[in-house]
């Protein structure tokens, strides 16, 4: 047993996987943008990675118990920021998600909320004294989750709002949700699908369009269904071996939408083929399994919940993003963690990984 957490106790295996994924990401960003007006984007992404790694080290130094102590404060802060965004936030791409950081880069505050919900729910689940979740507990979890989800939906940002939900679900599962409650929950979700279908007319027009597009991509080949179709064409035409680095026509000629960000996996799939996709997916699986391993070895349940909160969000991101790229899920604007270009998203992932390191470093500390 040691007295102090040490950086040597970082999960270097995890970091190696992260390094591999980010390297592929930066290369693909370079390939997607080098021949366009956005040339040089890979350098910006490298900068974000640097910022993220620094943030990861900083957050790993603050004992996660200390962070969890402040959970109520963080929660209130998070909700307040979301409210502020709703009132004064910039509209970008039709949604208010961004806050200007004193003239600097804009920060998407809902990313922050992801971190906060991990900490808040970890704290909540840790406070449950048994390994059984009561119905009251479940209602509380639902309430804690639904308030920020609702606020993010009002921005409106369906994708990020949805991302918070798996933290609650995975957390509840690990905290000992009773099988019967889970069964009831699954039935409720099943029932919600037709209700939600009928409610679709209350969605924002762009959300309606995205759902329409998802269901009938070929009906509107030039506008809404265009993105999905072009993504599928990119992936499919890549074939088994891919067209080669920088040689994907869908990617290079700009048919793949936001190919350096949300659709980066489509760009990679076109140029590196099924082989490349398998490498990427296996790297992500390795990342997730390594995260679960960290959870299993956590010193306490609090640490485990934090690590699994991070795992839930990252896993959900990968699932939704990869499914979107092959047309199995509607376009929701969820990036592929560690590969998609983006400052806030990259920062979030590294802050989340910082929490994981935080837990790991302290597993032997008294």
């Amino acid at each position, binding site marked *: 047993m040691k007295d102090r957490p040490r950086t040597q106790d970082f999960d270097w295996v995890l970091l190696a996987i992260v390094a591999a994924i980010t390297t592929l990401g930066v290369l693909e960003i370079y390939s997607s943008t080098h021949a366009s007006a956005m040339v040089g984007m890979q350098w910006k992404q490298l900068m974000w990675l640097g910022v993220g790694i620094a943030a990861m080290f900083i957050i790993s130094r603050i004992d996660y*118990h200390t962070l*969890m*102590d402040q959970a109520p404060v963080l929660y209130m802060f998070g909700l307040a920021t979301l409210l502020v965004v709703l009132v004064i936030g910039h509209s970008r791409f039709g949604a208010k998600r961004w806050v200007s950081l004193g003239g600097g880069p804009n920060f998407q505050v809902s990313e922050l909320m992801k971190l906060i919900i991990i900490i808040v729910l970890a*704290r909540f689940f*840790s*406070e449950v*004294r*048994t*390994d059984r979740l009561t119905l009251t507990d479940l209602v509380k979890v639902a309430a804690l989750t639904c308030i920020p989800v609702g606020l993010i939906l009002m921005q409106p940002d369906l994708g990020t709002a949805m991302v918070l939900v798996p933290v609650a679900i*995975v957390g509840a*599962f*690990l905290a*000992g949700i009773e099988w019967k409650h889970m069964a009831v929950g699954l039935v409720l979700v099943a029932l919600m699908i037709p209700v939600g279908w009928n409610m679709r007319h209350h969605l924002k027009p762009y959300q309606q369009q995205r759902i329409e597009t998802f269901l009938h991509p070929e009906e*509107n*080949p*030039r*506008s809404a269904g265009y993105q999905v179709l*072009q993504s*599928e*064409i*990119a*992936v*499919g*035409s*890549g*074939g*088994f071996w891919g067209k080669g680095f920088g040689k994907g*026509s*869908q990617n290079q*000629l*700009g*048919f793949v939408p936001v190919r350096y960000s949300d659709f980066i996996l489509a760009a990679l*799939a076109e140029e590196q*083929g*099924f082989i490349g*996709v*398998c490498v990427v*997916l*296996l790297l*992500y*699986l390795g990342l*997730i*399994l390594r995260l*679960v391993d960290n*959870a*299993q070895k*956590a010193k*306490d*349940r*609090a640490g*485990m919940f934090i690590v*699994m909160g991070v*795992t839930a969000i990252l*896993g959900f991101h990968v*699932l939704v993003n*990869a*499914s979107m790229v*092959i047309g*199995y899920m509607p376009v929701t604007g969820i990036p592929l963690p560690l590969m998609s270009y983006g400052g806030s998203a990259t920062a979030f992932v590294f802050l989340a990984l910082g929490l994981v390191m935080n837990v790991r470093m302290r597993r032997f500390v008294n």
Partner: protein
Amino acid sequence: MPSWSVNDQKIPQGRLALVSYVFVAIVALLMVGFWKLQVVQSGHFADLAERNRVRSIPIIAPRGPMLDREGRVLVDSYPSFSILLMRDDLKSLEKSLPQIEDGLGIDPDDLRQELEAAKNEPKFLPVIIKPAATQADIAFVESHRADIPVLELMMVQRRRYPHNSMLASAIGYVGEVSVQDMDQSEGQYRPGDLVGKAGLEKEYNDQLEGTDGMRRVVVNSVGKVMRTLDNVEAIPGKPVQLTIDYDLQAIAEADMVGKQGAVVAMDARTGEVLAMVSRPTFDPNDFAVRVPKEEWQSLNTDKKTPLLNRAIQAQLAPGSVFKIVMATAMLESKQISENFTAYCPGYANFYGRTFHCWRPQGHGVVGLHAAIVDSCDVFFYNVGKLLGIDTISHYASGLGFGKRTGIDLPGEEPGLVPSEEWVERVYHHKWYAGETISVSVGQGAVTVTPIQLARMAAAVASGGNLVQPHLLKNFANSKVDHFAISDNTVEQVTQGLYGVVNEGGGTGYHLRLQNIDLCGKSGTAQLMSYDAAKRLGTKTMDGWFVGFAPRRNPEIVIAAIVQDTMEHGGEAAGPVVRDIVKAYYDKKNARTLQQATTDSPAQPNSTQPLVATVGAKRP
């Protein structure tokens, strides 16, 4: 340590393991998803990617020009721009509509109607909103590329008819290829391609139409051309040289201005059509762009049928011109003596009916020559009665009536030669003998087209050579039917036809020309067939004149008809024939004179084109 973290519960290893299995399953499913796209369907998507990337831009081949016999341009093509409206982005389209209407001078209602009509077509198909853009329109599109991205320019080749309605009925017109034609062409045509729809444009479409070229380019997602893959140049259509003589055509056109009817002038020896007019007519330039619906309707429903080429499609009673056939039949059949005479008091009675001669006071006693010269009806009533309908029918058919001449134009009509067999087949009753009397003077059931009349006259004067009329200069396999007519018959009939124009009492005496042996026969039909009369709404007379020169083995033969006139054929149609014949000889004499005076070996061919045309092929 805060109180909340004092938790003696163990880490739920089992459930954690379960969660990791779920993730393994998810990744496996995703791999299956990618496998489906990238391995199972990769060929399909590779096709789609290629179609995305590569755009084939057709290079429209210009249609070949049509030239007159001396190489003067009658029809040509010119490059032009069409303005396209992209409909894939409806929102920005709506915003730009007022600006577009303003800038291009398009009626907002028309534009909206067009968009409405295209509503059910795929969104990526643009709408042509201005088929023939002016310089100002092109400038407008180019200068608004940034703020009105929905407009595009497309280069096309358009048909131009520099002489407007001249020769229009024979030339025909072009139009967009029909769905049926496209299906039959096995991929040769794309929607919007122009093809010949009528007349020579249709007949010689294969020769006139070139082969479109194709430029394959790589485009990016906003349609910007990044580079050219390959370039197949268009092969322009071949020129078509016609037998038409622009000078004669111009005279025929001028003579027919404001009239209803037709003229066809033909080289009597070869069947080369020198001039062909049908009135009223249309301007094929109107079809070269897009015919407004109302105009197309009015062209089609006009009682005067401007789209009809009367020279080959009007089936009319030949009137007294038919007497040429009667005279030939009389002499050739030898059923009647050459010296047969009849007394004409101005009328005659047959089968209890009175038949009038055109001249109420009568012609007195007339023989064949006089009967031709002054067109005595009573004489030919008697001849007809003696010959009977089947003999008449035999000679009429032999001289080319009742069947198509085979002219190289679509839609030629055969006319009708009545016979006993015909009336029994069609009307299921016996031939009325009285009908024979009417047919004897070109009335009743017999109908002919102007081209048939011209060919018949040439045949009689040449001893029975029925040429195949044609408009293509190097018309291969021109067929000549021979219907033997004895020299004596030719001599007697042509003497009569010479007398029509050159003897004092002739119905065409006012048409005589100095130094030219113009022969001819007038005809005045009271009515056409009942059907035709009803269709054309004609109440007055049809005036015919068929003329040729010289008397034996003529060079030129002309049939002219002026419909809906109050004049007799000699007055109504005769001058048209005379003017063309005169022009023909003036031209011929001028050429002989030129040949005699210029003895230059550098110009061996006096029929050099007056207007040099590039690519004009001369036989």
